[in-house]
């Protein structure tokens, strides 16, 4: 279903549609919008930290609210919905079915997102996106914290519904002539993601209810004054959110598997090792949650177990990197924007992974944990590989969605600005962490290395701002006035493009 921006279908037809391309479109537009909003918050954070002392905000309270909403937005309203959006677009095409298994459920899952987003943004809580008790149950001001809890609850249910739909569509609705081992790796990626979500999300959903009743004061699960244990929340939280890291990254890996072979004009180097690595990641993602908690006073043996569990996830990720490089090796790579973003993403992925191994090595955790090192590390994942792969994929899907081509030159300028910006912001933050700057601080000790590095980091953030301005302009301009794309082969790479002749939605 090609979206004609200048001769659009009536808005209500898209909004009330249950067709997978329409839901996918809504997901994608929604997530990109929230990505820009969350990015605006990030710019305000970096502006505040440009110099020591209060710069932009009057007090630390607003600052704390801003970083909480920034984190929540980027994770739950950008990365997850975007993956769901491209999944909606492509999974039915890839498994050769007319729609998702349950179109109405699909629409329900999407329409829960704006509700959750409204709760998070109107509440503007200050708990940090992790909402550790006892702070979140005793000291965090309401009703913001309650709204955050309900917002996250709704977002969690939405992603569970979406995940059920994907699993059933892939496993049950796939064309009978199409064996599992012939499905594109992107389908496997969405399948792994959905399975991880289904297994991990209920834990956090339960923890949120406990958090809420604790806030009401009727229970004391996490309140030490009532015999509860705040560390229990951290276990429940990270049992969901360490696997969630893979929920964020696996769709990006799937996207890279879509882009690399097409632009290198070579089949994937090893399809089976890609699948093996996905399955390994799915399993191993559940073996490492407590490496986020080494500093909470864990025993030596607990730490050892979780360090091994964490290191065990590395070979699978390394297999993916190997697969990508080996696929490109010997190919004829046409460097259009999608593969440029993917290659940049792989480079940043390696940096992020190396930093992650350092985090998990037990004694070093006390150097890096809760410092800016961790901030830089996790942003290299989220902004580096995930956002790079997703932005590349937005350009790759652009002809499918709009029927027009984006501006290639603007996209490449955006790529270089983003690559430089991300490196400046987040690699510098690793160093800040080694100098001992804690994360989530409104102000820092005004000494030379900290000031300089914060300034480098902020300058990088402004470069990203420029890149995002170009991106937004490119998207809007090209959607309306771009060159009409050759829909059989929009990138001129003699490779098959997605089937754009989907049935008109009229459920």
């Amino acid at each position, binding site marked *: 279903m090609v979206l004609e921006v200048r001769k659009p279908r009536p808005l209500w037809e898209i909004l009330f549609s249950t067709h997978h391309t329409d839901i996918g479109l809504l997901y994608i537009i929604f997530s990109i919008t929230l990505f820009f909003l969350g990015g605006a918050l990030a710019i305000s954070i970096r502006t505040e930290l440009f110099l020591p002392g209060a710069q932009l905000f009057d007090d630390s309270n607003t600052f704390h609210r801003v970083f909480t909403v920034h984190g929540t937005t980027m994770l739950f309203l950008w990365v997850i919905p975007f993956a769901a959006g491209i999944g909606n677009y492509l999974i039915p095409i890839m498994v050769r079915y007319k729609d998702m298994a349950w179109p109405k459920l699909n629409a329900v899952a999407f329409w829960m997102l704006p509700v959750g987003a409204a709760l998070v943004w109107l509440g503007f809580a200050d708990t940090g996106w992790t909402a550790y008790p*006892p702070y979140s149950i005793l000291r965090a001001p309401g009703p913001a914290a309650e709204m955050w809890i309900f917002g996250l609850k709704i977002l969690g249910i939405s992603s569970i519904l979406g995940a059920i739909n994907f699993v059933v569509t892939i496993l049950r609705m796939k064309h009978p002539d199409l064996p599992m081992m012939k499905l594109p790796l992107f389908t496997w990626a969405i399948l792994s993601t959905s399975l991880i979500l289904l297994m991990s999300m209920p834990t956090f959903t339960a923890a949120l209810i406990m958090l809420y009743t604790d806030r009401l004061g009727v229970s004391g699960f996490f309140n030490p004054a009532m015999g509860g244990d705040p560390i229990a929340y951290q276990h429940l939280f990270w049992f969901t959110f360490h696997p969630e890291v893979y929920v964020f990254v696996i769709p990006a890996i799937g996207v890279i598997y879509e882009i690399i072979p097409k632009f290198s004009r070579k089949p994937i180097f090893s399809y089976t090792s890609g699948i093996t690595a996905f399955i390994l990641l799915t399993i191993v993602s559940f073996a490492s949650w407590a490496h986020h908690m080494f*500093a*909470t006073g864990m025993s030596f043996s607990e730490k050892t177990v979780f360090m091994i569990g964490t290191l065990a996830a*590395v*070979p699978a990720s390394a297999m993916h990197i190997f697969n990508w490089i080996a696929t490109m090796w010997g190919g004829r790579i046409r460097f259009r924007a999608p593969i440029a973003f993917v290659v940049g993403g792989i480079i940043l992925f390696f940096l992020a992974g190396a930093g992650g191994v350092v985090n998990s090595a037990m004694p070093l955790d*006390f150097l890096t944990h809760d410092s800016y090192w961790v901030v830089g590390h996790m942003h290299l994942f989220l902004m580096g590989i995930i956002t790079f792969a997703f932005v590349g994929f937005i350009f790759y899907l652009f002809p499918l969605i709009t029927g027009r081509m984006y501006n290639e030159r603007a996209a490449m300028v955006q790529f270089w600005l983003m690559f430089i910006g991300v490196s400046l912001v987040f690699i510098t933050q690793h160093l800040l962490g080694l*100098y001992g700057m804690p994360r989530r601080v409104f102000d820092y*000790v005004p000494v030379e290395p900290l000031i300089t590095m914060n300034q480098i980091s902020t300058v990088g953030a402004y470069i990203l701002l420029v890149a995002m301005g170009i991106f937004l302009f490119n998207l809007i301009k090209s959607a309306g006035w771009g060159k009409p794309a050759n829909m059989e082969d929009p990138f001129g790479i003699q490779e098959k493009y997605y089937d754009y002749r989907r049935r008109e939605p009229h459920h």
Partner: protein
Amino acid sequence: MGHGTLEWVYVGVVVAVLIYIGADAWNVERFLDDAPEEAEVVKVTGQQWFWTFEHEDGRRELGELHLVKDVPYRFEVTSLDVIHSFNTPDFATMIDAVPGRINSIWYVPDQAGEFLIQCREYCGFSHYQMRAKLFVEEPPGGAEQGAQVTNASATTTNDLIPPLGAAAVAS
């Protein structure tokens, strides 16, 4: 088919590197985990938004901690309200202060001078300035008095200096 062999060798190399990293980290942590028995106990309490310290002999300090160089200390860390994190970047030590439980960590201050203690777990309004000063003094009569004085005056500034990784490792 070169596929299988090449990939197995590659995975083997990755696994080997990971084994090295894991073994090295495990080995270091094993030696750092247990405090020596003769270590002096300092009780550390975090509250929104300051630190209090209680020495073995009952001396209490607020926002400042005086230690003696080359003496092992074990810190028993707890909190009275929300989770804080007791962090001394210059000595690469950090442990969460969790209400309702006592976590311990130890180190031997092996440099004299003035250092920064800070909170490293988000704890609300004044988290960013929940700091304390750590003074490490030369053992009485142990070191030359002159050297100690010049050293102290050189570092007497209002702002505590965050650690410099290279300087820390060069010593």
